[in-house]
């Protein structure tokens, strides 16, 4: 005769535990950590290349680049000037999890680092469920995608603090309506900070750099 056995346990409790450890380590060291998410091809690696080129050594930065296959993104970031870059090849998993990130972080000397970017696998669904110990998520979308993207992926846009609209130099070449995209994002997340950029031309990136500088400065050791 089967009996009811109360469990009341979070399924992702192990991931959450590891993420909490990561968060605590980064807190103690004063490292500001951003989990970068988007669909494949929105421009995560491009904006990180621009960011590295802009700040140089003035903000010591570490980067973790995740993909299903290849270390192509990590290679690009090294070429762009990244001194502390690690790749995670998931070999099949469509998202990074805290276990993967912790394994890499345990191997990095974070003493002098002030800013850590985790470039997640290109995917707006699965990464939303997996806390990586970050301070916040930055979600990218581009003008070559639909302006209803935020409505289609509410979980990710709700959990993100900043939305970057990339490829603004291509506005007008598709039916993408920038105002609609902004309105849709604010419908899902009324507190979303929205930055419009073109990684290709450099347009709009000053706002991103200013926001980053101020966020890093606020994260005290």
């Amino acid at each position, binding site marked *: *005769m*089967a*009996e*009811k*056995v*109360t*469990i*009341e*346990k*979070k*399924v*992702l*409790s*192990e*991931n959450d535990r590891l993420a909490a450890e990561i968060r605590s380590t980064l807190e103690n060291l004063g490292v500001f950590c951003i989990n970068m998410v988007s669909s494949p091809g929105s421009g995560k690696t491009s904006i990180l290349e621009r960011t590295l080129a802009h700040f140089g050594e003035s903000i010591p930065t570490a980067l973790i680049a995740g993909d299903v296959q290849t270390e192509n993104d990590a290679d690009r970031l090294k070429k762009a000037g990244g001194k502390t870059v690690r790749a995670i090849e998931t070999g099949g*998993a*469509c*998202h990074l*999890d805290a276990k993967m990130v912790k394994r890499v972080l345990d191997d990095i000397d974070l003493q002098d680092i002030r800013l850590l970017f985790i470039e997640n696998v290109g995917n707006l*669904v*699965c990464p*939303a*469920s*997996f806390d990586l110990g970050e301070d916040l998520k930055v979600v990218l979308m581009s003008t070559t995608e639909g302006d209803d993207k935020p*409505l289609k*992926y*509410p*979980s990710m846009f*709700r959990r993100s603090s900043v939305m970057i609209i990339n490829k603004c130099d291509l506005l007008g070449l598709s039916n993408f309506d920038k105002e609609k995209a902004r309105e849709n994002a*604010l*419908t*899902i*997340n*009324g*507190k979303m900070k929205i930055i419009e950029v073109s990684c290709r031309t450099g347009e709009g990136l000053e706002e991103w750099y200013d926001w980053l500088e101020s966020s890093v400065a606020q994260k005290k050791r």
Partner: protein
Amino acid sequence: MHELSIAQNIIEIVSQEMKSRQLKCVDTIALRIGALTCISPDALEFGFQAATVDTPLESTKLVIERLPVIGKCLSCGCEFEVEEYVFICPECSSRNLDITQGKEVEIAYLEAT
């Protein structure tokens, strides 16, 4: 698909509970899954079935309670079910909300011998 990762986590937790509580057989795993998690119950069941072939949990069924997204307006205090992912207070139209339910991925209980 991340439902497979979720299924594998469920299997790990339940297997540990079987060991620690000396359970012989688990008939049912009752789950609570919030609507904001983007976890498809069908995909989860599929992943669970695939991952439990030739294991003690092969015949175990999943029972999934879907939890709607509940928002609490920080401006007027209204608590409401968030419909169609529109995160705007129906009373005062504020977008200043807390989500009090909808992100859960939990094992509530087992039915076991």
